[in-house]
């Protein structure tokens, strides 16, 4: 992956809590075998309403989604991340996230950043007033900046390093191959194993 240090973009305010991944992309759009091609499915049901934020022409090109607490709860489908990315969303800011989504997002270079409630409310208000309201998410400095404000955030150390360096997650783990092999030699022998030819 290309190294990623920061992103600046216009805010898309999504003033809803507990947005589940079934809303982000309904399962019937998750039947592809690729990691791309999911933009059509993004918020497919909610986009049917003309006043949905993604349909607002004044906000076209917005790339920083700001949402209520517990964003992307529910299903583990990484398609939710792929769909946001395909649409052009580069960062999501919310008071809290579904755990699996947050992991998935960072693995794909989608900056899922947890911010205090009050900060998120402030950003939502600012974006409501001004569709051109800009936010910068700085992964190097671990802070979000906007005109007149800034807020530090915490992010998983490993995910951050991988993104900043553009490193491959699996390659980093495979560098610990000897340690993994040593661990495997000590596993209890009675643990179950599977095989293609097994009966029962």
């Amino acid at each position, binding site marked *: 992956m290309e190294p990623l240090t920061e992103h600046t973009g216009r805010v898309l305010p999504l*003033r*809803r*809590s*507990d947005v*589940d991944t*079934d*809303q982000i992309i*309904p*399962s*019937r759009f*998750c*039947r592809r*075998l*690729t*990691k791309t091609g999911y933009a059509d499915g993004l918020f497919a*049901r909610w986009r049917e309403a003309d006043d949905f934020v993604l349909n607002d022409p004044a906000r076209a090109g917005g790339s920083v989604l700001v949402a*209520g*607490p*517990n964003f992307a*709860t*529910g*299903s*583990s489908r*990484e398609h939710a*991340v792929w769909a946001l990315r395909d649409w052009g969303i580069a960062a999501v800011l919310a008071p*809290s996230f579904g*755990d*699996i*989504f947050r*992991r*998935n997002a960072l*693995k*794909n270079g989608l900056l899922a950043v947890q911010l205090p409630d009050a900060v998120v409310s402030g950003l939502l208000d600012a974006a409501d007033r001004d569709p051109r309201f800009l936010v910068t998410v700085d992964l190097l400095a671990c802070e979000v900046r906007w005109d007149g404000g800034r807020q530090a955030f915490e992010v*998983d*150390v*490993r995910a951050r*390093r991988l993104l900043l360096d553009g490193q*491959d*997650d*699996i390659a980093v*783990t*495979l*560098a*610990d*191959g000897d*340690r*993994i092999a040593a*661990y*495997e030699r000590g596993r*209890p*022998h*009675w*643990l*179950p*194993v*599977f*095989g*293609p030819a*097994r009966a*029962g």
Partner: protein
Amino acid sequence: MSEPRTLVEKIWDAHRIPSGSDGPDLLYVDVHLVHEATSAQAFDGLRLAGRTVRRPDLTLAVEDHNVPTDSLSITDPISIEQVARLRANCAEHGIELFPHGDARQGIVHVVGPELGAIQPGMTVVCGDSHTSTHGAFGALAFGVGTSDVEHVLATQTLPMPRPRTMAVEFTGTLPPDVTAKDLMLALLAEIGANGAHGYVLEYRGAAIRGLSMESRMTLCNLSIEAGARAGMVAPDEVTFEYLATRPRRPVGKDWDEALAHWSTLCTDPGAVFDRTVTLEVGALSPVVTWGTNPGQAVPLSQAVPDPAQFTDAAERAAARRALEYMALEPGTRMRDIEVDTVFLGSCTNGRIEDLRAAAAVLRGRVLAPSVRMLVVPGSMRVRDQAEQEGLHDVFRAAGAEWRLSGCSMCLGMNADRLSGPRRCASTSNRNYEGRQGDTARTHLVSPAVAAATAVAGRLAAPADLS
């Protein structure tokens, strides 16, 4: 004496591999479950990077999410493509697969346990959020996305920060008509759909000890609906007895060794949890959902709440939205809500005990004329067992459809979808907008309530039937 530890910490410590790079430890994965809907891109990723599957012998695959439950032949072109890809990937890497049509096929979280492949103290992952189900065995089990599926295929490990721990203490005695499903819906209503965010839960208390393995699986299955990373129950005689007859259990001397180890898997007295939640269960009654997340639930005896009663602004707004989607008025008695569809199945409530509970209600009764009921066993083994017990005759005589195994109407990915604004009482785990069909409305219920509802044509408990 070493420090007292929680069950989670014991499993964590036994699977932790310190990483040579900065960042979190690696967690070794004992069993990796794979299915057709979230694995294709992971296998592609391996291939692109010139990598292979490190431990095909610790990997088991099934076809469940997008297979038909009305026919042994798959006709949907996308489904055909998905299963063909999984079959090719499994063949290429030497992975054991239970394909659609196999006597052992079923929902991934039903199949693993019934094989005896999920054992106390293990780590289990799967590209599916309800992997938490397997915590019922005292295993640390959690769902992951496709990138992590690829990571596990390639390395058999996951880099993971140590999770926070939460004790969920159920005090009191569970009333006879209250099931594990009701228990969890009550907990979710109490702490909210995000109330256990990021924690690994350990369910504790005498009420848990009295639960069967099937019920414990229902309990742990729903952990994810509280935002938890995983949920677990310490193993005991009930666990060991369940495992003792399973095909993939350790045998002979191995069984004795395993059993000795399993018996150490409990939270030590004096061990400290990061948080504790207590729920008194003695006064519980059947619980059903009224909204669009599993925490929006009330006892069946109550009414649809008034959003104005919620003090939290976000909750109030969510309740308003939910009622609009569900087409419900505040104050409507839950028992007055009419349904046209009943779904009995899923990894939450598709096991033999669930089918027995529903059949016990349906025996000698027929469905309300306006109701369609789908009975979808969680696995083909469950289906066989049910047929040996004659349960299929009960369902059919009542007018319900007796189907093959799969995820079916739990997620609306396959052909079993509701079209139009249908209202469904469902034993599954998610009542999200559009989950069972674009405009479908879902009420989560226990199997007994599902069966009674099918007869009454409106939300009902068995005791409501004459």
